[in-house]
Each structure stands twice: as C-alpha cells, then as structure tokens.
C-alpha cells in the first residue's frame, strides 16, 4: 500500500521540475543590414542551424551559404502572441550588406525577417535538471521505435517487467563474466529514476519490480511512455543535466523533437545506455557506431525498411554547435530574477517551465563583456599597481547599455567575472559619481524659468575661488589642476570639467533645484542637499546614471527601464506583457542644449579620447573621476544607445588614473565593436532651438564685420542682447546672413524691454 501511495503521488502530482528559460530579444534581418557586423553565421550556429551544401530538400533549420546569396530555411518561432512561421527565404548579399530578402517559392519580398530569440540561460533547481517537456503526440514515431528497439522491444505487451529480457541479460552477463547488459524495461527505468536510488541491491531491484507492476496496473502505456520520454537522462552539458528527448533534440540538434530524422532519433536512443560515455560530443565515431547498431535493430525488428535504414546509416553526424556559456549574461539573469521574484517564488521559477523573453541584445551583451574584460586587463598591464593577486580583490567594473527612447536594457555586465563575484555593480552598487553628475547642474541652469534661463550656451561662468558656508564648516572646491581659470565660457567649463565654476553655478541655481532636475531625469538614490552634491559626491548606481543620460538622449523623455518583453507559462499563456513607458520631464530644447554641451565634451573636452581610434558619428558623453580617483566613470550616448561604464575597487581605494584613461576606452571599445566604427543617426535640433553665430570671447550676436564668429544654439527667445559689431540690430543666423526672423526678433526685443 505504501508503494502504491508513492507511485500515485508522483504520477498524479507534478511529475517534472522544468526550469524557466530566459531568451534574448530576437535578431532581425532586413535589407541594408551589415550581416558581418551582426555576426549572422554565429547567430545561426548558436540557434542550431546547420550549414548544408545542397538547396534541394532544404529543411527548417538548414542553410546554404553561396556566393552573394544565402538560402535559409528559417525555423518557426513558437510564441503565443507573436509566432513566426517557418520560412524558406533567400538573402541576396552585396558585399557585407543584405541587399534583398525574398520568400520562396513565391518570391515575395520580405522587409524584416525575425530569427528566434536565443536562450541565454535558465533558472535551475538544486538538481540542475534541464528539460523541454513534450507530449507523446509531439514525439515522432521513429524516435519511439528507436528507443523501443534498443531499450524495450516488448514494451507494448509486457506488464512492467520482461522475463525474456531479464533472462537474456543474465545470459549475456554470465558469458561476459561481469554486468554488461541490463534487463530493465522502460517502466523499470522510469521507476528507478522517479522513485529509487541508483544502487544495485536485491532489495532495491525487488522494489523496482513491484513498483513497475503497480505503475503498469494503474496507468496506460501511453502515459508511461510519455513520462519516460520526459524523464530519461541523456547526458551532461556543463553543470546542467539533460533530461528527456525534447531537451536532447534541442541540445544535440538545435531543433524541436518533431523534426528529428531517423538517424538523429537513433542516436538519441543509442546513448540512453551510457549518456556521457557515448556522448557524440566526446566520441563522435563511437556514437555513430552505436547509432548504426540501433538502426540495425530497428531494421531487424521491422521498424524501418531497407531504404530508410541505408539512408540513415549513411547520414553524417550533424550536431548543433555547443552554445556559448551564458556566463557573460548571468548578471542580467540575476537582475531578471530579482525583478521576477516580486511576483514569482524561486520554486515557481525553477520548476514551472516559464519562458522569459528579455530585451537583451545577445551581441551587445557579448561585446560589452569583452570590452570590460579586455579593458580592465589592459589597464592592469599598463598600470601594474592596479593588478591584485587575489581575484576577489581585483579591479572591478561594470557596463550597462540601453536604448534611450525605450529604456530597454541591451547589455548588462555587472562585473569582470561572475564566477568570482556575483555582485552586480551596475544595479546593486551605489558609488560617488564625480563629474558625470555635473550635466544635471547645467540642465537646471539652461532650463527655461520665469525671467528666462540662468544660462545660455553663450554665457560665461565664474571659475574663481569660492567658499560656501556649511554646517560642517566652509567648503572650498578646487579644480583637478589646482588652478582657477577666471571667467570661462559655459562650454569650456563643462568640457574641461571645472569644479569651481560648476559649484558656483550650483549655488546660483540652487541645490534643491539641481536635485529636482536629477530626480526628473531618473536618479532615485538619496541625494543629500549639500553644496558638494553638484560635483558628484552622492552615491548613485550606474543604472540610474545611464537612465538619466538616456532621458537627455531621447530629447527629454524619460524611459522606464525595461528588461522583460514578456513572460509566458509552460502551457503557452502570456502572464505578463511588456509595455514601453516614458514621460516627458525636460523640454526638448533644453535636452538638446545639454546634448550639444556633451557633444563638445566628446569633441574637445575630457572625453575627446572617444575619437582617438577613429569613431565616427554623433557622440555625447561625460567623464567622471571621484576624489582620490576611487571611481572612474564614463557615460556616453549616441542617438540610439546610451552606455555607462564604471570601474573601481569594491573596497574603495585610489586607482591613480583618470577616467579618460580608465573608463572611457572601455566605452569606446564597446561602441566601436557594436557599430563597426560608424554611429548611425544625428542629434536633431528641435524647432524651439535656433542656431545663430556669436562672437566667442563675449558671447555677443555676431554679424558681418565681426572678426571672430562661431555657431551656437539657443532656445527661442534667449538670444544674446549684445551684438558684434556693437549696436547692430537683427539676428545673424548660422550662415552669417543678417536675415531676422520676425518671431525671434519680437521675443528678444520684448525681453530687452522688460
């Protein structure tokens, strides 16, 4: 009775633990795309596609790479709300570009082709079992035949144990003088895996036999077979145990179980006896030999005909590439897990087979991890004092990249080696930000307020000695070079990251207002209302800083940070669906002026190093080095991507190098690899910003006859009062024409009268 209860409890309860899987965002192919840059072949390989040489009989998951042409049979993508069908397509290539995509046989032009998302990881239970549950109907008959042929040919007729098989095994073992062959039926194997320990004692064998009989009495053969097909152990992939034929088909062949060929089915059946010893990855020739033995058995038992047998024996072993270790995405997986844990327990995540579709860009993630790893190693080589013998005390860093307009996280690398430290420095660490905080002060000063903004980009700020009374005594900010620079243009103050000028500006704007601007931009950490705040003394996470800069990059619209596209349960129901969220928090004109300032920093200022290896296209950014060089930052953006890099020691100590040497090269390496060296897009000037010429030494409007002129941006209605030559009237546009705009002139004239 006791055994019966155990059997029923297991069979009628939840039978299998199925870890939740996490997927990247899908790759999209379209005409004009640089296929080399997106590593098309690598993506296909990781998705389990196989390169073949003949287009005849092309199957889903295969491709033929020819001259200037790729014939690709795209696998179907199974998703409840956005499934993609299997498609036979041809990609015409011109150089490194995809010129055209057409669907066959009709030849219809396709403008965007989705490849399935790549699995980037899973949430395992303590046993680290990975399985892809399948129903009996999903498993092709040929695979069932292969398994029955070699493991239990009388499965359909026996009642749980097979005396003939036991006798045969005993005879074979006697002849061999050792245990060479087992006599267990599929039911016994299932019982052993489900309920019993692997030891070979008489008591355990007796229990196994009794329980197998009980299972056969209570349950249909179909149910027993389905349980077996999902339970059977089929080897190890790293620390993960592969269970069930569904998972094996995915791991070995990169395809659903229903698409397995006869030869592929035979191989899976072949390795059941000794999954690791016979693993095709370990011993391909041995695995093929054993596979052919299974095919011979299938033919002998009349399960396949001679033609099929011959073709299957001749089929070469074609395994899916071993997918990359998800190591570089583990910080991202942890972030998702923390986010999901508010609604789903660890037990649910590790056992209920949820599918988490994330925003992660697999390529950006890989390049981000590489840039950080190599950048830190380079630094240690150049500055040996930064190297530590103990990996747990090594120089650390993090990189986070997101789409500014949507807040989607594209890459998250929380440290240099997840195996050494799982602490995510991008989302869990709070560090002083140094000068990457300064742009928030300038935004506060540039923003329109009653009576006009405190600053325009033609203004000058005062970089002379400053003393501010605080409760802790007088505060006297100093510049990095220990000098004062007098009256300096606002651009120069930020481009050269002058502390004193910025501190004074902070006093003029008001610390409370700076905090309010930082909050609007997306900073959520505690910001103490002290004068030194404007120089970045508050401790903030790199993720918050990335989001705040994303708000500037997207023209003042703050995005909600997104890591999940949607969440689907094991039966295919959508549990959660991502919605993009954003809010306008800064007017587009001010956001553009801030971007223009930060472009100057990247062109001429402390971040000019971003161009040192030839990076082309629009880039804005800011370096940040904290007191004592404990923390090095670089936060930069292009029109389509923002990335923040932080480096330092977990237990703060001086690095002795500035951020332009430490953090900036990591950012540059990442962006160059990601874009191929050319950034797409432009920072567009919104309608409420005018571009006019000014005289740089005074900030006056420049007209013909003015000896020195340069273009500058202004919010409408904030043009300078003074002119060069003095006393001129009218507006000089960026081309130097004296062609006044009625509206601008009116606003400027009106402001002067008030």
């Amino acid at each position, binding site marked *: 009775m006791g055994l019966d209860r155990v059997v029923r409890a297991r069979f009628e309860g939840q039978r299998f633990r199925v870890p939740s899987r996490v997927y990247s*965002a*899908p790759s*999209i192919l*379209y*005409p*004009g*795309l640089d296929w080399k840059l997106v590593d098309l072949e690598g993506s296909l390989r990781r998705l389990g596609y196989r390169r073949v040489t003949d287009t005849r009989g092309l199957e889903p998951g295969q491709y033929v790479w020819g001259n200037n042409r790729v014939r690709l049979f795209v696998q179907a993508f199974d998703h409840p*709300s*956005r499934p993609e069908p299997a498609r036979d397509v041809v990609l015409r290539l011109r150089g490194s*570009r995809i010129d055209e995509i057409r669907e066959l046989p009709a030849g219809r032009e396709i*403008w*965007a082709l*989705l490849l399935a998302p790549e699995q980037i990881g899973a949430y395992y239970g303590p046993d680290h079992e990975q399985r892809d549950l399948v129903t009996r109907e999903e498993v092709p008959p040929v695979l069932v035949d292969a398994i029955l042929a070699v493991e239990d040919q009388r499965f359909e007729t026996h009642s749980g144990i097979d005396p003939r098989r036991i006798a045969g095994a005993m005879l074979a073992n006697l002849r061999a003088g050792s245990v060479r062959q087992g006599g267990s039926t599929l039911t016994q194997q299932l019982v052993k895996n489900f309920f019993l320990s692997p030891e070979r004692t008489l008591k355990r064998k007796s229990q196994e036999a009794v329980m197998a009989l009980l299972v056969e009495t209570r349950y249909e053969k179909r149910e027993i077979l389905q349980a077996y097909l999902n339970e059977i152990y089929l080897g190890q992939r790293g620390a993960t145990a592969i269970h069930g034929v569904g998972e094996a088909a995915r791991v070995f062949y990169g395809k659903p179980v229903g698409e397995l060929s006869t030869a592929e089915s035979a191989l899976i059946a072949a390795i059941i006896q000794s999954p690791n010893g016979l693993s095709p990855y370990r011993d391909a020739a041995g695995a093929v030999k054993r596979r052919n033995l299974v095919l011979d058995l299938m033919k002998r038992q009349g399960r396949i005909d001679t033609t099929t047998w011959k073709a299957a024996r001749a089929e070469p072993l074609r395994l899916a590439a071993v997918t990359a270790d998800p190591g570089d995405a583990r910080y991202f997986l942890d972030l998702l897990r923390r986010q999901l844990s508010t609604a789903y327990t660890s037990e649910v995540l590790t056992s209920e087979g949820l599918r988490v579709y994330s925003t992660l860009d697999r390529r950006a993630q890989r390049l981000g991890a590489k840039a950080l790893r190599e950048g830190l190693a380079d630094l240690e080589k150049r500055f040996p004092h930064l190297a530590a013998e103990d990996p747990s005390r090594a120089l650390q860093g993090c990189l986070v990249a997101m*789409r*500014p*307009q*949507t807040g*989607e996280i594209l890459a998250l690398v929380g440290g240099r080696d997840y195996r050494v430290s799982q602490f995510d420095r991008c989302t869990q660490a709070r560090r002083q930000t140094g000068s990457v905080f300064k742009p928030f002060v300038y935004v506060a000063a540039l923003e329109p307020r009653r009576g006009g903004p405190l600053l325009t980009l033609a203004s000058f700020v005062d970089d002379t000695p400053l003393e501010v009374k605080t409760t802790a005594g007088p505060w006297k900010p100093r510049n990095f070079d220990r000098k004062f620079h007098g009256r300096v243009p606002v651009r120069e103050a930020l481009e050269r990251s002058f502390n004193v000028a910025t501190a004074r500006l902070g006093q003029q704007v008001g610390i409370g207002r700076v905090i309010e601007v930082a909050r609007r931009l997306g900073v959520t950490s505690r910001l103490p209302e002290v004068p030194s705040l404007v120089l970045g003394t508050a401790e903030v996470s790199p993720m918050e800083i990335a989001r705040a800069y994303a708000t500037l990059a*997207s*023209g*003042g*619209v703050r995005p909600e940070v997104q890591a999940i*596209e949607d969440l689907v349960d094991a039966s295919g129901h959508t549990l959660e669906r991502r*919605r*993009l*969220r*954003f*809010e*306008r928090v800064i007017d*587009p004109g001010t956001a*553009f002026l801030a971007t223009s300032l930060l472009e100057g920093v990247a062109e001429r200022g402390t971040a000019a190093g971003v161009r040192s290896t030839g990076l082309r296209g629009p880039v804005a950014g800011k370096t940040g080095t904290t007191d004592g060089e404990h923390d090095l930052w670089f936060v930069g953006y292009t*029109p*389509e991507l923002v990335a923040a890099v932080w480096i330092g020691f977990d237990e703060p100590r001086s690095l002795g190098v500035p951020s332009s040497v430490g953090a900036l090269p990591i950012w540059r390496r990442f962006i160059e690899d990601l874009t191929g060296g050319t950034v*797409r*897009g432009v920072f*567009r*000037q*919104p*309608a409420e910003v005018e571009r006019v010429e000014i005289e740089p030494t005074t900030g006056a409007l420049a007209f013909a006859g003015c000896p020195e002129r340069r273009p500058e941006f202004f919010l409408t209605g904030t043009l300078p009062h003074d002119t060069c030559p003095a006393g001129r009237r009218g507006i000089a546009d960026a081309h130097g024409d004296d062609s006044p705009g*009625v*509206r601008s002139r*009116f606003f400027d*004239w*009106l402001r002067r*009268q008030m």
Partner: protein
Amino acid sequence: MNGASKRRAAPIGLLVLASLLFASGLGCATRTVYQQVEPVRISSVEPAGDAVRRASLRLCTEGLRSDERGRSARARSQYERAIQIDPTNPWAYLSLARHEVESGDPDRALEYVEQAESLLRAEGVRSPGVEPHLLGLRGAALQATGRDGAPDLERAARLAPAAWSDGHLSAAELR
C-alpha cells in the same frame, strides 16, 4: 512733449506696434491651423530614410495591415520590432499610439503620442499632414481617459476631415 517723455513713449509705442504685429502673426497661424491638409500615410513616408528606417517603416505598415485584419497581438509585436530596429522612428510610436487607443489603453497611447511628437519635432518632420494625427490621437486618448479631448479631436477633424471626421483613425487610414 519734452525729450524725456518722448524717450519713454518710444518703447511703449514700439511695444504696442510689435504686439499688433505679433497678434496678427498669431491670427495667421490660427487661420492656417484650420486649413485642411492631406493627412499623412506611413506608406508615403517609406521611400525616405536609410535602410534601417525603411525596414522599420515597412514593419509599421505590416503592423497596420495586421491591425486591419484584427491580428492585434501580431500588430503590436511588429510595431515593437520596428522600434527595435530603429528606436528613433516616430512613425512606429505613432502606430503604437493608434493601436493603444483602439486597444483601450489610452494612458499608454498618450505616452506614445508624446514620444512620436518629440521625435517628429527632433527630425523637423512637423509636416501639416501629421498634425491631425497627433491632435486626433491625443484627443481620442484624452477622451478615453475621461478628460477633455474634444478640442483636439475637433481640430483634427477640421484639419483632416477625410481621416478624422468620425473621431477615429483606422489602421488603413494611417497605412
């Protein structure tokens, strides 16, 4: 009138004159707002832009087609993929805004209208043809949230009666 009072009077006179000039300018603007325009369709925007933008726009039109066929989830996915390819494509946000108004999520629709408008402004694409869509979608979304969207909807209908006279923008009308 002595010299000093003349000096005081001059700026006041100028102020009055300028105010009149400005007011007349606004008047002109008001008149142009209600001039009928040809509402823009995304398929007419397509030829412009680089390969990335073209692919993104095509996904938008495919999404609108999916919406026309009642395949709402697929349509939304196509708009989101359009943004994945080109996050600065304002038409993708505009399509999403329309989709959300129809799907009954007006708050979200308002956010998408805001983003579309911001990107259109940044690109300098405030062509008269897009104005009724921005106004109409904002008005429809405001109405749906219980706020007053009537003025925006009314302006959209006056600007582009062909698309907005019924207070509703169909996928076909935007495609």
